[in-house]
């Protein structure tokens, strides 16, 4: 169980080339952390999602599952205390909290497939307006494999995607249809980017919140899929 804040060793760096007001990685993680509820079991993917563990709201307790076989993952070890037999799904050395437990991969995915994990946060290369997600393969180029992502997205009831609104070429990652091979169909519930919080609805991406100082017009310009804007869009409170 993690109470309050932990310090992970990722550098703070601005990521969006287009708007200096946009959130950085930590800002995205902070906003996602607001989705945590007391008693949640949470699976955090590699990258930005990992940072969410640093911003658990005061007064709530959550526990982190890593699909390679630990529940109750703690912070990184102090130097010299690394244990090669204790890693997370990103192959990083970790620690275990009091009350943690280890298990095999079949049991781990029984937790995931059986919907015992309350929230899954993961990165994506593309999300479609129907909630399809692509994050495992670029044909003819990247062949890393899906790891546990396909099990996670096919099973989790509550999936939040943490990603940049556009790729490095400035092309929107929120699309009418995924162009890359998909990881899962209609599974994403919510997306948090450096610009906005959006929900997947039958009508498309529904804008829920703007990053502080970011305008609806800017979000529109970088969203290729259908965007639903109803009334005044509040700013995130980070």
């Amino acid at each position: 169980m993690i109470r309050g804040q932990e310090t992970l060793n990722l550098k703070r760096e601005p990521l969006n080339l287009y708007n200096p007001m946009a959130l950085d990685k930590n800002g995205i993680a902070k906003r996602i952390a607001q989705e945590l509820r007391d008693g949640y079991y949470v699976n955090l993917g590699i990258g930005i999602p990992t940072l969410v563990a640093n911003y658990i709201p005061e007064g709530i307790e959550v526990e982190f599952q890593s699909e390679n076989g630990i529940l109750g993952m703690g912070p990184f070890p102090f130097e010299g205390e690394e244990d090669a037999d204790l890693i997370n799904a990103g192959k990083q050395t970790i620690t275990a909290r009091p009350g943690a437990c280890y298990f095999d991969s079949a049991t781990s995915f029984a937790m995931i497939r059986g919907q015992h994990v309350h929230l899954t946060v993961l990165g994506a290369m593309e999300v479609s307006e129907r909630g399809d997600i692509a994050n495992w393969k670029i044909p003819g180029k990247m062949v890393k494999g899906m790891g546990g992502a396909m099990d996670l997205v096919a099973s989790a009831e509550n999936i939040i995607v943490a990603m940049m609104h556009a790729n490095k070429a400035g092309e929107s990652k929120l699309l009418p249809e995924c162009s890359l091979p998909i990881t899962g169909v209609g599974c994403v519930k919510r997306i948090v980017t450096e610009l906005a919080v959006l929900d997947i609805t039958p009508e498309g991406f529904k804008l829920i919140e703007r990053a502080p100082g970011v305008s609806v017009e800017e979000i529109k310009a970088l969203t290729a899929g259908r965007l639903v804007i109803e009334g005044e869009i509040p700013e995130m409170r980070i």
Partner: protein
Amino acid sequence: MNKVVSGPVAALQGLKDGMTLMLGGFGLCGIPENCIAELVRMNIKGLTCISNNAGVDEFGLGLLLQKRQIRKMISSYVGENALFEQLMLSGELEVDLIPQGSLAERCRAGGAGIPAFFTPAGHGTEVAEGKEVRVFNGKPHILESALTADFAIVKAWKGDHFGNLIYKGTARNFNPMMAMAGKITVAEVEELVEPGELDPNFIHTPGIFVQRIFQGEKYEKRIEQRTVRKRD
């Protein structure tokens, strides 16, 4: 019922070109280092290897890839190995990528006499191609089949003469399911103890699943991502 063999040479006796192997481990964590070294020495070719990952360029299954001993890999994630990507894109290496949970469950199914099961993982993706789809509780699932192997090679922390095994921390991962699914299951352990020394209530892999066991000479236990925090 004493399953102890002298070492990796004896443990892998009968392992031949073209066989299908399962190898435990997640990344470099919990991999059977001593058996992998022996596979390299034996220079067995044309292997089909079922393993969640493919090692790194200089360690783990990467050593077998370097010597082109592997014909086909069945894995879920191979991103740590640059040579792998190259061999795959050039067509030298056949690759079957499987969702991690389906891989674990398919190994367990193979060991448990369950020839096939339905899972939601991969529905609507490339993984579902050619597979039966059926809707349960309003949700589409695909039919996945069991995996078995000529040799399953696992690594445990402690083991006894009967083949009872205990793993440590997250080094458990795929080892228990693979131990179930081998026609011959070989276990290498850090510490081999007398029967009765392991608490029967806390055995992870019952000895019935293991045919040969030995204590590995040494364990390097390389760390892929050494990540630490500063002391306050």
